[in-house]
Structures are given as C-alpha cells and as structure tokens.
C-alpha cells in the first residue's frame, strides 16, 4: 500500500508541475501548486504511517495549514489584480512596477 502511495504521489506531483509550467492563467498555476503540495503530503503521510511516527503526521498537519495560508495569500494577490484591470495572465504581467 505504501509503495502505491509513492506512485500516486509521483504522478500527482508531475501533473501539478505540468500545470505550473504549461498553463498561462495564474489561477490554474496556483491549482498546480496546490496539487504538488498535496502530492508531497501523500508521501509524508504514507511514510509516517508505515513507521508509526506521529511526529510525521503532526508535521503533515502543520504543513497542510501553512499550504492553505499560502493558497489564501495567492488568491488575494490574484484578486488584487482586478483593481488595475489586469487579466490574471502571465502574458499581461510582464514588468515589475517599482
């Protein structure tokens, strides 16, 4: 079962990475990031369970909360783009304003 968890984790990580690299919409890229974090968490939980290590599960829970905070900040940055009427697209965001 543990080996299967690793396979699922690897496949999910690669598909999340493809979303970040290939897509143009910032939102879908953020989705890809979330999938990559979840893939890493699957591997961590599988290992922590197989070694019967509750420290690992506690760490996974904290990582889950920090990843949710990261998603919220990412979503609020995308939402703030609406103010200057910019589409949340990597093509539209080409220069860093000082």
């Amino acid at each position: 079962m543990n080996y299967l968890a690793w396979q699922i984790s690897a496949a999910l990580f690669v598909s999340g990475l493809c979303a970040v690299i290939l897509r143009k919409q910032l939102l879908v890229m953020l989705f890809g990031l979330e999938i990559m974090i979840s893939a890493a968490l699957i591997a961590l939980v599988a290992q922590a369970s197989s070694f019967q290590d509750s420290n690992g599960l506690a760490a996974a829970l904290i990582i889950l909360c920090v990843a949710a905070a990261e998603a919220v900040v990412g979503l609020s940055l995308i939402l703030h783009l609406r103010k200057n009427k910019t589409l949340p697209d990597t093509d539209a965001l080409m220069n860093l304003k000082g």
Partner: protein
Amino acid sequence: MGEGLMWAAGGLAVFFSVLMLFQKSLYSAAMCLLVVMLQVAIIFSLSGSPLLGLMQMVIYAGAVMVLVVVVIMAFPNPTASRWGNFFLPRPLAILLLAGFLAELFMIFHGAANFPASSSTAPNNLAVGSILFGSYAPATEAATLLMFLAGLALVEKKGGA
C-alpha cells in the same frame, strides 16, 4: 480492500489533475481541483490518518475552494489561449522531460526499497498530544499564519 480503494482514489486524483491541465474554463479547472483534493483526503484516511483526511477536507475542499470561486467570479472567463508560450530551447526542454520520465520510471519500478506498510498507524490521540505538546509553538504559528493570510483578503481603506 484498502489497496483497491487506494487504487481508485489515486487513479481518480491523477485523472482529474491531468484533466484540470486541459480545462479552458476556470470553473471546470476548479471543479477538477476539488475532486483531486477530496481524493487526497481519502488517501490520507486510507494511509492511516483519518484526522488529516478530515482536516484536508475542511481546509481545502471547504475554505480554499470558497475563495477560489470568489476569485473566479471576479474575473471574466479567459478567451485567449490557455497555454503559455515557451522560451526554453527545444533540446533543453526535451532533455528535461527525458530526465523527469527516467525518475518517474525509477519510482514506479521500485529503485528505492520501501519499508513494508504497517498495519496500525499512529492514532489521532498520539498526533493530538504531539501537536499540543512538543509541537505547540509550531501549531500556534501555523494557526496565526492562517489568520494573517485571511487578512490579506481584506480591502484596504481608499482601495490603495
């Protein structure tokens, strides 16, 4: 039984994460993400941590998805092409892809020897006592971080 369920949940998660890659509409991409998150919650429970599975459902499938819908409503549905244009020289891109596929092949074919899966995973009591015992500062920091992240959404006065 557990193995079969794990196959089903993992297969669905991977299928919908690849499906999300090709969605033009942001709504359908968000729905695909929701399915992936729910399958990941099931995988956590099958791996022996129902507490994590429930937290994944509550935090991701609940809170984060609501914000995703709010952000999608704020923007028109994209009409332009969905793919970014690549500046990477083609040979380098092909090399990277080949390297990745080799790594995946090694993972799928057990290059590293994985320990046998244990029958009894640590129970929620042990996780809870660790979270509020030796990990208490980290737990408080994570909850404070989530609270501050929520503040990022609050509109500043004057819209600056």
